[in-house]
């Protein structure tokens, strides 16, 4: 049984000039109990609208949403449960902690709404405060604690009722980088321990990669691809996904094969590709997509004829790796090198890419 299921969810709204905009465009999605799904996409792609539709804070134009097998929204059966009956936790981007209630009262609120007895509320709140290691903050007000602490309180409030589905709306975008890293690890540990299903919205791919069991890349109101982080990165299904996730080098060329040897012929040289990448394509115009770390750069004259000769136009030392921009005619290629001496701009170099790491997409 899937814990959360969306069927052909569509949300249409009209601009002032009457133009029809599909904020969510026919999205279907099934999430199993205990999965951690990250909706990843640029701002304005519809991921937040999708999340809010699950919470009951937005109303889709059509489709159906069910949680734990129960329809909470179904346009054809005219069902639309209000948010307070959907029994899910949610962490908001702004944390949305109530400034007039103390930390303990904020966390107790969902339990009080359940009608729990005072003693039961207190013991459950203490339990979760301890689990989140914020018991010393219980009497503080939200304005008196740091951003990272507020984030923990928001998470505690979302988890306190023990709902099986927790929604996250870019919860880490307001804390600084170090705290974010820390909270991410903690959140993951919490999810593994408690086993809730998580639906998490972000535009940060590192966050997505670090958290997700599956990433759903959202673009223009549609799910472009849903897969494990590794497959999203290594085997993007579309140019759109490849361009959004990570950095890429996009080279235009013509696919040609002579015997065993399959190549992309470009103005600057040719690129070898693996037979799997060709996937039944004939001789045609394609984009060859490769990642910066799959290229090698060297000052020595190579043995292989697939090496390209270019000139370094910029070299940037970034700590873990060095980023080179290498120019071949009017084409610039980004290359990340992890070791070796820093090559200066103006240096002439030989570069090549591993055939198995090149993906192809049709042009046009």
């Amino acid at each position, binding site marked *: 049984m899937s814990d959360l299921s969306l069927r052909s969810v569509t949300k249409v709204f009209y601009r002032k000039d009457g133009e029809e905009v599909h904020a969510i465009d026919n999205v279907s999605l099934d999430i199993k109990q205990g999965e951690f799904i990250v909706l990843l996409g640029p701002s304005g792609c519809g991921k937040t609208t999708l999340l809010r539709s699950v*919470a*009951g*804070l937005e*109303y889709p134009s059509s489709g159906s949403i*069910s949680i734990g*097998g*129960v*329809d*909470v929204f*179904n346009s054809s*059966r*005219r*069902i*639309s*449960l*209000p*948010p*307070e*009956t*959907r*029994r*899910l*936790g*949610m962490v*908001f*981007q*702004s944390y*949305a*902690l*109530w*400034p*007039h209630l103390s930390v303990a009262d904020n966390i107790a*609120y*969902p339990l009080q*709404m*359940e009608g729990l007895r005072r003693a039961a509320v207190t013991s459950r709140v203490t339990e979760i405060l301890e689990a989140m290691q914020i018991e010393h903050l219980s009497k503080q007000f939200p*304005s008196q604690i740091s951003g990272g602490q507020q984030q923990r309180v928001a998470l505690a*409030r979302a988890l306190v*009722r023990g709902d099986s589905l927790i929604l996250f709306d870019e919860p880490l975008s307001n804390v600084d980088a170090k705290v974010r890293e820390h909270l991410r690890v903690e959140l993951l540990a919490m999810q593994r321990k408690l086993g809730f299903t998580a639906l998490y919205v972000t535009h940060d791919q590192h966050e997505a990669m670090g958290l997700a069991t599956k990433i759903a890349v959202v673009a223009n109101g549609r799910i472009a691809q849903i897969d494990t982080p590794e497959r999203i990165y290594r085997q993007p299904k579309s140019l759109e996904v490849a361009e959004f996730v990570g950095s890429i080098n996009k080279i235009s060329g013509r696919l040609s094969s002579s015997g065993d040897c399959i190549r992309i012929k470009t103005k600057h040289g040719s690129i070898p590709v693996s037979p799997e990448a060709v996937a039944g394509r004939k001789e045609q115009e394609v984009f060859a997509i490769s990642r910066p770390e799959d290229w090698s750069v060297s000052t020595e004259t190579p043995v292989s004829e697939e090496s390209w000769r270019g000139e370094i136009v910029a070299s940037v030392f970034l700590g873990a790796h060095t980023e080179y921009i290498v120019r071949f005619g009017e084409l610039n290629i980004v290359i990340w090198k992890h070791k070796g001496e820093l090559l200066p701009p103006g240096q002439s170099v030989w570069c090549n890419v591993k055939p198995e790491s090149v993906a192809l997409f049709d042009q046009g």
Partner: protein
Amino acid sequence: MQALSQTMAGRVHGIGNKRVRRGNWFAAISAALCIFLAMLILVPIANILYDVFWAHAPGASPFDQLGSAKAALTVLANTSLVLGVAAILAVFFGSLFAWLNERTDVEMSWASKVLPIIPLLLPPIAGSIGWVMLASDRAGLLNVWGKRLLEFMGIQTDGPLVSIFSWSGLIFVYLIYTLPHVYLCVASALRNLDPSLEEASRVNGAGPLKTLVKVTLPAVLPAIISGGTISIIYGIALFSVPAIIASQAGIDILAVKIVNLMMAEFPPKTGAALLFGLVIVVVISVMTWIQRRVISSGKFATIGGKGAQVTLVKLGWVRWPARMLLLGYILVATILPFGTLFLVSLQRFWTANIDWSRLSFRHYLNVFGNSFASQGILNSLTLAISVATVVMFVTALIAFRMYTSRNWLVTGAIDFTLKLPATISNLVIGMAFIVMFAGAPFYLHGTLTILLLAYAVLYLPQASIIASSAIAQVGRQLQEASSVAGASEGKTFFRIMFPLMLPGLVAGWTMLFVLLAGDLTASAMLSGTGNPVIGSVILNLWTEGSFAPVAAFATVVSIIMASVVLTVMWISERLTQRSR
């Protein structure tokens, strides 16, 4: 599963689920309140329109009651002249003061707090009387003392130095009370204007004056125009100032004319009064329309998020004259008239030849010994407290419902109706209430109930504007978080939204309280000997010519108002600090 989702579906429509049903109960009460208020606003208006234009006896049409067209036109011309000149001056000085306080090193931050609340500190009725005592032709303190000073310096003068009972005197007092409205508009526009626009102009070689003319003024022009329209809207319905000053100066002003047609004539010339009232409705509608057009056409560049540091214009030698000007206004609007009231109240009777040894508090004792006057204060305070509380709470509730509602049509209709009394103007509402409730079948003439109902309707627009802005300041996610946490609408309102709106509501309550307690427009028509209120007591004592007692009474009232305003300002400042 199918069955379970069926029951859940049933719950949405309110069958059998405790939580959902409670939400509906909350919704039902809000809906009932909306309908009640809408009826209270719309029915009397529809009733008076029907009465006057359709149900009149032959030959008694409202146009017959008007009398000579010339007299009617004179009233309109007088009113436009006074309002027009006062509004232009108010726009000039109000904008100037706003610029001085927000953009220059005049450094009078206390003035920027006091300026907007001047009409609340010293109600127009008290201010007008104070100014009459300062500047009437023969016994005005300024005239008598000024002349003596000149005589002492060897200068002989004929006639009064200043005269409040004149066109300029009348315009002057209108100016005092319209200026703060312009100030408030322009100052808040300046505060929201991105200072980097002005900095860019300075960096690109324009001096402070050129920057003001080329960049700052055009950017806040919408606010300046809207300040002007607000001062006209406020001024045209203002009754207390012309009631005290214009009548004696022999200048017929619209607001006074309307009240006289209703009160001084028997039988009341309701038709003529309504025709004049409709002029006000038209003026207010046009002004509101202009204001909306100007605001929506404005291409504002406003600060997003964090407040930016403004580089202040250095005034140099102009700084002291600028300070004097600001100080002069505050003096003229508050301290001078209040001081005069107090001084006169201590005398046996109003005279500029003060016998300092014989000053006493006798009038204070008399005023409070007088059951009519003390009853007036008691009634006003009771009405003001109860109406301000109820109206503020109800509008907060309705604002919350409108905030969460998805039905734009209904929300829009409610919003329009609640704000309608502002356009209809207090004078027309007052008339409509007399016609509707004073006689059969309600017989509410001379009761507190009719005042209560009229006050509630009159101050709904202000209250609902305050409530909407109070709720807009509470982030939407706070309300959503409560819903997701399982709270019904009612719980969300009482546990989350209401407490968070409280600082805004408290400030609004104060404003309502002061306006209500000092109300004269509706009170002049609706209160009689059986239900005196502060405004009508002052007017009564004034027309009787008991100047020293009226000064005593006005002093007490001003002190009550000012202390309420200042106390609540202090409290709400602390409240906002705490919740941040």
